[in-house]
């Protein structure tokens, strides 16, 4: 997990970084630059939520420039980072009608589909995510601009597993990453994560998160806290 709002992706172009740190981020003339950057992110498999939020903000002020496709791509990219709340931050900036109960345009239909998917991922209901994903052809269509979307989602799911589990049954993993049991795809996937398959159990190497650690709080006394005592002691001389 990382602080996606602060960490600057290495691949962020200088010109985008400059816009983000100046008032140029409000200049409607820069919408195209931000949009091109989203395109880049889709093909390079990186997500730069800070830049994408700036773009959504520009759409707020320039309704006539809204590009549905770009919004969907921004959300799909954010979906991949489901552990860092990028998705909900982006959603907060969208037109407020998009989540209304009965979707009134293709944009809100697609967003609501993504929102459902996010709901499963946020609840770590990974099996539910795949069921929802393959329920119809819509989802595949929605994320089609993101190269390797499926393996990116799988990678994020695997990271979550690494954070919480020391080991996991083979069949559960199969349903969580949606790769068939005993398929070479699943076995390759396990190898690529540097996990090991031991009978029906997939073992995950120990890392800093996946063991339950009791938290021991220790009290630190700052020197300033003693200042009044020391002053008093000095006065008593």
């Amino acid at each position, binding site marked *: *997990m990382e602080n996606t709002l602060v960490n600057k992706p290495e691949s962020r172009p200088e010109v985008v970084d400059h816009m983000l740190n100046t008032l140029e981020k409000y200049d409607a003339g820069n919408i195209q630059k931000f949009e091109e950057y989203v395109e880049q992110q889709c093909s390079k498999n990186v997500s730069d939520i800070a830049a994408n939020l700036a773009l959504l903000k520009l759409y707020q002020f320039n309704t006539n420039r809204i590009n549905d496709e770009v919004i969907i791509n921004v959300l799909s990219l954010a979906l991949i980072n489901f552990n860092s709340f990028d998705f909900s931050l982006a959603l907060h*900036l969208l037109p407020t009608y998009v989540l209304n109960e009965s979707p009134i345009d293709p944009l809100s239909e697609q967003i609501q589909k993504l929102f459902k998917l996010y709901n499963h991922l*946020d609840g770590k209901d990974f099996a539910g995510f795949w069921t929802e994903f393959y329920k119809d052809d819509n989802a595949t269509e929605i994320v089609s601009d993101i190269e390797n979307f499926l393996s990116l989602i799988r990678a994020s799911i695997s990271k979550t597993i690494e954070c919480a589990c020391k080991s996991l049954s083979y069949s559960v993993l199969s349903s969580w990453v949606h790769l068939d049991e005993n398929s070479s795809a699943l076995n390759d996937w396990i190898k690529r994560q540097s996990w090991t398959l031991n009978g029906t159990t997939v073992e995950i190497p120990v890392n800093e998160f996946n*063991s339950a650690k009791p938290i021991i709080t220790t009290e630190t006394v700052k020197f300033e806290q003693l200042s009044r005592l020391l002053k008093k002691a000095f006065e008593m001389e």
Partner: protein
Amino acid sequence: MDHESFNEYDDVNIPIESDESLAVGNVVYDEAQLARQQEDYQKQIQQAETTAVPEVVRQFLLYFQKCFNEGNAYELHGCYETSFQKLTEKFYKTSRWPHPISVVAPLVNNDETFVLFYTEVYYRHVYARFQPTLEERSLSYSNYCNLFNFILNSDNALNLEIPTNWVWDIIDEFIYQFNSFSLYRTKVLKKESHETEKAWLKDHDKVWDTYSVLNVLYSLCGKTKIYEQLRAQKNGQDSTEVAGEYGSRNLFKNFGYFCIIGLLRVHTILGDYHLALKTLEGVELNKRSPFARFPSAHFTTYYYVGFCYLMCRRYADAVKSFSHILLYIARTKNINRSVQFDMVNKRSDQMYALLAISVALSPTRLDDIVNTGLRERYGDQLSKLQRGGPESYPVFEELFLKSAPRFIFPYTIDFESTKLNSDATKHHLDIFMVEVKNTTFAFNLKSYLNLYSTMDLGKLAGFLEKDPEELRSALVALKVKNRQLVRKDGELLEGEYVNVSELDISLENDLIHIAEAKDNRKFADWFIRNTLKNYAVQEAIANPEKESDNVNKNKKRANKENKEVAAEKK
């Protein structure tokens, strides 16, 4: 929380005024005189002489203008803070102050700059006491435009001298009116009728435009070089070197500070929590913060920062912001009985509600005073929230709706279709509820997990009557959601992922490992405080005379407070 950091607030002292007479320059009007003029004025109003100005008000306006132009800060403060309020109580409780253009301008010899600032106060009074008309909303807006234009572009602005409170009120009101107008517009456009209003709004689509509001705030930040100053201060340099002609004057520096808070607010009501927190880059948020000197600025900042943290799912940081400021309010409530008392009370009630949400989503040990305050106000709701499950959802929603800022519709209004005109608050709430549902799902797990150090997943599923796979997901969610970004030092958006819960788990296939935090009491802090108390007692025993002085003083103060309370009850 670190108690030491609040000691400084104990010294905050705000004088209390209870005198009924009124001084306008050297002339003092006693109560009887005021009452006579009040009666006359009532009569005149009944006779429809609406342009009539009572003598005392006329004198006041002239004196107000004189102080304004002389830059007499002390007297101006009196005019603005005290006399204006008193005259409002006497004469303008149910009617508007004398009109700036038709009445006041001729009276003050068409002193444009004074009229500009008087108009600001005039409309603020209208907004506070009445339902402003569309025309008034628009005129107030254009007055703000002129006022900011004057500050940003006129050479005379450098000689401007107004009380800091007024500076705060200008920015505060500017954003309030913007917010209020946006909500009003959304409301009108939703309705089937109201054709005249709709037509008016369509013709005046630039009035209270979000872009121009942001523009004003950013321009003032730029003019006062406030960010440059903050950066220099942070690097230990002399901020006056980068401040420029405007920024080095205290008045404009304050304008700059307050505009930063203004930006924080505007971004928050637009739903941009990321940019809202980023706006405070370089601002130190602690007792040394430049805002700490102005109570309203102080708690406004913490309210919005806390709310943004809550929406960014950083509950530990949200709890910290709310408790910090609620403790401050609790400690100063006896001396802070100013005009804004009601406002403070309302805000702190909202913050307790938000605190209840944050604490429910991420259990935290609170400071005793804050904890008591929370239980007093929201004890019932809090226990419902903490139980989680579908029964808690309406309570989460209720508290959210009650205490969230008044969100506005962010997009440029589309007059042809109503589709873009949807309820902003509901939108933000819907998104937030996903998080609530996915987090509270695990609440009833905790009471079981607390009892064991290892447990079989199937067995726990049996206890809970849940599907084992659903439970497995809930456990992973619990583990992952317990790791939150928590700010150490540094900018508001920075932070490290930390396990904020007292519970840590890991899954070994179907076996759940559970570790619980051992809660070590903090002894050192306790000892330091009590040693100091002990010294104080010893000193009191050694110098009984001095102590009796203090007791008398305290008694006096207590009496005064009691009187006030009694007066308020009346």
